[in-house]
């Protein structure tokens, strides 16, 4: 029978099925970071258990680590304890690879997996972090898990799962210059809502998806979770294979040939059926900006903040009203009239080399606007940072008035010192605009790196296509 990519990944990892259809699936790659693992290691120890296969583990410290003054270490004692706990746990049990704080290759867990070749097509990838969906860009079945599940995977190398339904998001047409994977993600969530993908594994396909680079595909799969889907994925093509060639943990020699042959089968068969298909037209897509406190509250840059009066559904209307108050916005305001205080280019959504190249291209020879108090670039990993410096991107940013920081999650969730103050408004390339996400009382607008860079220069949102062609 014709199968979808998700069906194939599921079938190839199914250890057993219970009578009620629940599956036990085998996990190939377990990514571990400091925030969601301490309680899992502790639980393991209390039960007198050992990790099943430590060479499935790739670990790093990213959520709590500072992005400045690395020579001072981690000043916050509570954050430090968490990072030290991860160090101790990995020291005790071992791992395939560990990139601790201060390591050259440390970085955001979803950036380092792919760049090390620790994420390979056909794998099941889990991590105690919802944005694990990122790795689906490599035709993996990748999803976030909770701490109990982290412990379960440590102890058994398996996960108890119900099979999800299949959703196809077909993006036809061609993306215009300066329109990116981020804009596809935001437009999709605007269309289907943050619960639109609940219960589904999403496969992204179509001409505009083939057009995307691996970085763009990771951005898109990263945000599948914001559409409610635990997993997003994209079939293997030449770009996937080329990206992986020669990476640290990619197979070599004969193994590479065998692997490549298998990877090329990782696509949906002709005639396979999906439970739901959503169509998007890339030709119509323009840069997107979120205005509210949920990623579904998004409009094109030429649009306006909505008017709650026009919303008939009462729960939705109240949601819009509450968001407008929190965001300090008036109904019907032009998006281009919204002034910003801070700019954050970073996070597992948009901190890879391509993201930084695009942002640097936009700001080159220009300067951050006077009303912008802080514009910062936080590379996704030490390797991204080194590559950017090799290309001179750091200088472009610094000359334009940006701060160039050390890698980590940083102001995506503001667990370290990088945060918004109450009332501050930020153009951010991260993935969540929830209340308080970037700091208590902070106001987040989600955009692509090109759009964040353009907003930094103008001091308010602007269609990057206009700025970039000037």
């Amino acid at each position, binding site marked *: 029978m014709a199968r979808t990519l998700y069906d194939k990944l599921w079938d190839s990892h199914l250890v057993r099925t219970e009578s009620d259809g629940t599956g036990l699936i085998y996990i190939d790659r377990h990514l571990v970071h400091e925030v969601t693992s301490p309680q899992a290691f502790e639980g393991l120890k209390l039960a007198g258990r050992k990790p099943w296969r430590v060479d499935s583990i790739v670990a790093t410290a990213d959520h709590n680590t500072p992005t400045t003054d690395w020579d001072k270490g981690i000043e916050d004692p*509570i954050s430090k304890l968490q990072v030290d706990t991860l160090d101790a746990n990995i020291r005790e049990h071992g791992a395939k690879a560990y990139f601790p704080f201060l390591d050259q290759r440390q970085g955001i867990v979803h950036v380092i997996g792919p760049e090390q070749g620790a994420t*390979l097509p056909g794998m099941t990838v889990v991590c105690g972090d*919802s944005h694990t969906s990122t790795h689906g860009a490599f035709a993996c079945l990748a999803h976030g*898990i909770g701490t109990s599940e982290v412990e379960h995977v440590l102890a058994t190398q398996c996960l108890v799962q119900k099979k999800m339904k299949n959703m196809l998001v077909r993006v036809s047409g061609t993306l215009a210059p300066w329109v990116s994977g981020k804009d596809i993600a935001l437009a999709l969530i605007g269309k289907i809502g943050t619960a639109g993908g*609940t219960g589904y594994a999403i496969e992204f396909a179509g001409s505009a998806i083939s057009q995307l680079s691996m970085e763009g595909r990771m951005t898109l799969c990263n945000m599948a979770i914001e559409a409610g889907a635990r997993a997003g994925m994209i079939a293997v093509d030449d770009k996937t294979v080329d990206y992986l060639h020669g990476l640290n943990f990619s197979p070599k020699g004969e193994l590479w040939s065998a692997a490549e042959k298998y990877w090329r089968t990782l696509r949906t068969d002709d005639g396979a059926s999906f439970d739901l298909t959503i169509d998007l037209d890339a030709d119509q897509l323009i840069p997107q900006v979120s205005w509210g406190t949920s990623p579904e509250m998004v409009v094109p840059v030429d649009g306006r903040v909505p008017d709650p009066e026009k919303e008939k559904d009462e729960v939705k209307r109240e*949601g819009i009203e509450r968001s407008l108050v929190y965001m300090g916005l008036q109904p019907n305001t032009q998006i281009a009239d919204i002034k910003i205080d801070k700019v954050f280019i970073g996070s597992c959504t948009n901190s890879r080399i391509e993201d930084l190249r695009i942002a640097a291209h936009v700001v080159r020879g220009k300067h951050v606007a006077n009303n912008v108090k802080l514009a910062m670039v936080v590379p996704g990993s030490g390797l991204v940072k080194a590559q950017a410096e090799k290309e001179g991107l750091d200088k472009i940013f610094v000359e334009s008035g940006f701060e160039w920081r050390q890698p980590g999650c940083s102001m995506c969730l503001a*667990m370290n010192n990088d945060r918004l103050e109450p009332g501050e408004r930020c153009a951010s390339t991260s993935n969540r605009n929830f209340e308080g996400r970037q700091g*208590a009382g902070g106001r987040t607008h989600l955009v692509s790196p090109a759009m964040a860079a353009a907003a930094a220069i103008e001091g308010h949102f602007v269609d990057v296509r206009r700025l970039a062609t000037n």
Partner: protein
Amino acid sequence: MEKFLKLEGLVAPLDRANVDTDAIIPKQFLKSIKRSGFGVNLFDAWRFKDVGEPGVDVSKRTVNPDFVLNQSRYQGAQILLARKNFGCGSSREHAPWALSDFGFKAVIAPSFGEIFFNNSLKNGLLPIVLRESEVEQLFSDVNAFDGFKLIVNLEEQVVSTVDLAKAFAFDIDPFRKHCLLNGLDDIGLTLQHVDQIKQFEERHRASQPWLFS
């Protein structure tokens, strides 16, 4: 895990959609390396007017009297009534830990964020999906009657009013139900299949050796 027995509890309404896990337990509290103690900071940004930091004595903080869980009529509530997509966002298990620690044993909503839903089940916090119209009725009941309680009967898969005048059936995965009713730990159950996992692993290694190199 504690067994989930029949529950009769006071209901507290949280009338907003898309309540995310950042709202349930803000990130500054995720720095803990423990599983307990998160209840005092549940919905921290909504319950308090000042910004909370870990380790700060909550009795000295400024309470937001308007937030529903601070109203005297809802003190001691064990059932949270919520709107669609409750628990969306991050995978932090701290969210169900905080709800349980605060005293909640069940959350009723028309839909849930999936990872939150799973995490809750693994911590003996029962997420119950009812239809939108049923949730709507419960919202009007809880607003209308002081001390409004519900009975959750997991065995029968029914939520009912105390006078049994209204009863709504709900679905639950049989395996999850079994685990909750008996307080079973997932890991122990999976480890009953060690041989099967090992056999699978050998086959997998033979067909995709690069995954093990």
